């Protein structure tokens, strides 16, 4: 038996789903979109499979969530729908209900948050509501676990008896007559589904045709309706639905007359107060950052990486393998390559779990919506969402949890843009590179670090503006018409579950790419030729490795960036490659390649060697390249996981690397021109590239103007 769980966002749907299924859940993706699909078996009866539909407000054809939900309801035809509605927000929640009732599938309405209704002194009459809607209505409190058993029993009974809702909701006479006219003509459709299709055809829903065997021409009826009501059909039908709800709601739910200020309103008065909003926002963001990045998260990750794996597991495994007489190369592969690689994945997990705990809490208590509300003004100019603020803030500590934090952004387009740009913010591991370059070339000047952040922010803003004008991002402008849900204290179980699900999905999906890359790079670094003989190398012999050969072979690519000028081209290329494992490796790699086994974090020992090997302009170009290019493997794994699509993953990595190359080239060439006054071909190319960037930034939205985007979104979506 298949039951679909449907309802508005913030109606407590996830809490109800968890209460119904417990740990019998499996997650996946809906076909063709990055919307998460959750299914589970009912605790009380394992034969019953419950599908958690995405939270939606309507069955319109405009958002991926709505399309997924209605395709499922129409295509898969579950045996019954359990529609959860927020009792404190009945009017808008019932709007979706009026649409679900037309599908010709048994529906049971579960009115949630009845405990809050009682506390407010509001009265709900479920029997009256049941009569008005023409289906069973049950009062529940998903948070307190009340009424859930009854809701499940009712929906199973409705599915067994095939008890279809008696569509009683009368629209105005004229509208109803036209809908009936159209549904009478839909002879190819089972009778109980006719009203749904008739309404969709009248709404000029362009996606509905594909679900029908034959699409009748209803333009005459549309014209008649639009003339009678002096409006477009989509608006007329929406008006009719809300009109109907207003007509029944007064009898079914009586609000407490003395209009006291609700707790949520009191909180909101302070939290988004004109003067207090920003300071409070800053404090909350600082707390999230401080706890999940600098203190607890950093301690846990440091401990996992350095102590657990660095001192115990890797040396332990290595010693164990030695004891049983394992060959050196195999021991290296297992201990350093595989176990070390797994460690690189797991090292991020504790920090991430701390962050996800915060995010889950902020989301379910209602503050996340306020973050978007406060920051929208600033971020939407660059094609980002107000919610992009959190990924970027976290990204200044570590890009991996930063990218994972983009999960909270609903709009697909904004989320992808955020994933692509988050790693431009210099993360903690890039700081040693900044310190190295600042120390070796610029006398430790403070402006180098500041400029690194400045470059990062400029890259985000510039990319946002450039990308939002490209074809990849042209479709689906996300309307920012967003509910600000009432504040409430979330259920601990739901918060913990959300934290764990996100952490686990990182380990599963991102883990593979990180592990694989770590092993490949371990091999390239650890093997090479000494005196013509291929052999395994010790750490200090890096300059004999395969990687060094590769560095030498590709160094010419970086000639326009000034790297090869002082003869240290291949070292710089190799350092940039080892930076892919972790960005701080750049400094240690330089140390080894310049003959120091161990260097301080800022590489002070090699400052003089380095400053002899390149000009200041080349050094700065190297710095910028490392800041902007493809991030470390762990972050790439996170990008792969969050994009959930190979094409988008490579687009993101490619874009970042090309941008890094172009910007570094311009910096080196123009920097050299300014300092030495020599104008060469490179300088000309650099100026042309600057012009190209300026063009991409300033060109008008052109053929992607809003009306056409909308038209396109309507057709292809």
């Amino acid at each position, binding site marked *: 038996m298949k039951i679909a769980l449907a309802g508005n966002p913030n109606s407590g749907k996830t809490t109800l789903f968890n209460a119904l299924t417990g740990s019998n859940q499996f997650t996946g993706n809906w076909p063709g979109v990055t919307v998460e699909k959750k299914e589970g078996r009912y605790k009380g009866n394992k034969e019953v499979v419950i599908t958690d539909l995405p939270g939606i407000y309507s069955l319109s054809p405009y*958002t991926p969530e709505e399309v997924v939900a209605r395709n499922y309801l129409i295509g898969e035809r579950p045996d019954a729908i359990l529609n959860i509605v927020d009792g404190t927000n009945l009017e*808008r929640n019932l709007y979706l209900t009026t649409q679900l009732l037309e599908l010709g599938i048994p529906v049971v309405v579960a009115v949630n948050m009845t405990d809050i209704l009682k506390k407010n002194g509001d009265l709900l009459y479920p029997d009256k509501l049941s009569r008005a809607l023409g289906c069973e209505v049950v009062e529940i409190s998903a948070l307190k676990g009340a009424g859930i058993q009854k809701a499940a029993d009712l929906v199973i009974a409705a599915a067994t008896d095939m008890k279809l809702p008696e569509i009683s909701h009368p629209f105005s006479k004229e509208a109803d007559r036209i809908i009936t006219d159209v549904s009478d003509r839909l002879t190819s459709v089972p009778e109980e589904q006719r009203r749904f299709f008739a309404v969709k055809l009248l709404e000029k829903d362009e996606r509905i045709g594909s679900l029908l065997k034959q699409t009748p021409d209803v333009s005459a009826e549309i014209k008649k309706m639009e003339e009678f009501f002096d409006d477009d059909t989509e608006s007329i039908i929406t008006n009719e639905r809300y009109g109907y709800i207003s007509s029944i709601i007064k009898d079914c739910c009586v609000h407490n007359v003395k209009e006291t200020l609700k707790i949520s309103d009191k909180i909101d008065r302070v939290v988004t107060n004109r003067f207090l909003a920003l300071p409070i926002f800053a404090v909350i963001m600082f707390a999230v950052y401080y706890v999940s990045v600098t203190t607890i998260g950093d301690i846990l990750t440091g401990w996992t990486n350095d102590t657990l794996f660095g001192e115990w597991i890797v040396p332990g495994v290595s010693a164990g393998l030695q004891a049983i007489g394992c060959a050196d190369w195999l021991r290296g592969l297992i201990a350093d390559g595989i176990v070390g690689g797994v460690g690189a994945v797991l090292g991020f997990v504790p920090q991430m779990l701390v962050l996800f705990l915060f995010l889950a809490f902020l989301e379910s208590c209602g503050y996340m919506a306020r973050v978007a509300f*406060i920051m929208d003004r600033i971020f939407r100019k660059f094609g980002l969402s107000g919610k992009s603020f959190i990924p970027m803030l976290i990204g200044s500590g570590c890009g991996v949890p930063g990218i994972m934090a983009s999960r909270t952004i609903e709009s697909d387009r904004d989320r992808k843009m955020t994933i692509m740009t988050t790693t431009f913010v210099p993360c903690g591991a890039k700081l040693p590179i900044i310190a190295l370059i600042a120390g070796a070339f610029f006398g430790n000047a403070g402006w180098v670090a500041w400029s690194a952040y400045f470059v990062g922010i400029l890259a985000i803003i510039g990319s946002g503006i450039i990308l939002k004008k490209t074809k990849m991002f042209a479709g689906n402008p996300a309307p920012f*018409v967003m509910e600000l849900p009432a504040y409430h204290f979330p259920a601990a179980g739901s918060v913990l579950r959300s934290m764990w699900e996100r952490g686990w999905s990182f380990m599963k999906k991102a883990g593979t790419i990180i592990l694989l890359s770590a092993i490949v790079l371990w091999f390239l670094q650890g093997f090479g030729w000494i005196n013509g003989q291929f052999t395994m190398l010790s750490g200090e012999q890096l300059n004999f490795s395969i990687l060094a050969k590769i560095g030498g072979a590709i160094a010419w690519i970086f000639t326009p960036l000034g790297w090869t000028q002082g003869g240290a081209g291949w070292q710089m290329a190799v350092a940039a490659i080892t930076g892919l494992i972790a960005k701080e490796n750049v400094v240690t790699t330089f140390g080894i390649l310049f003959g120091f086994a161990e260097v301080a974090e800022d590489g002070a020992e090699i400052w003089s060697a380095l400053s002899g090997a390149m000009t200041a302009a080349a050094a700065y170009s190297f710095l910028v390249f490392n800041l902007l290019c493809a991030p470390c493997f762990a972050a790439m794994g996170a990008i792969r996981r969050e994009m959930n699509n190979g094409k988008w993953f490579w687009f993101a990595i490619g874009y970042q690397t090309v941008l890094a190359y172009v910007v570094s080239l311009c910096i080196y060439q123009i920097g050299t021109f300014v300092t030495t006054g020599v104008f060469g071909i490179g300088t000309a190319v650099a100026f042309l590239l600057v012009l190209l960037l300026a063009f991409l930034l300033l060109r008008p939205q052109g053929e992607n103007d809003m009306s056409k985007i909308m038209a396109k*979104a*309507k057709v292809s979506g």
Partner: protein
Amino acid sequence: MKTLKDSTVGSTVTVKKISGEGPVKRRIMDMGITKGATVFVRKVAPFGDPVEVTVRGYELSLRRADAQMIEVI
């Protein structure tokens, strides 16, 4: 013609008509801002946009640019 964008914070207005078409208009209406609905303009975000309104008993935020599509009295 007065729109929701011009309405001052603290005022209560009634929706007369919603202009435009496509996803944004549908979304606005799906969220309950329909002809005849009462809308209370609650506050403006710290940076001046978006605005927060109360409609059908709940809080909704929308951008000023979109609020301009909503004709009110």
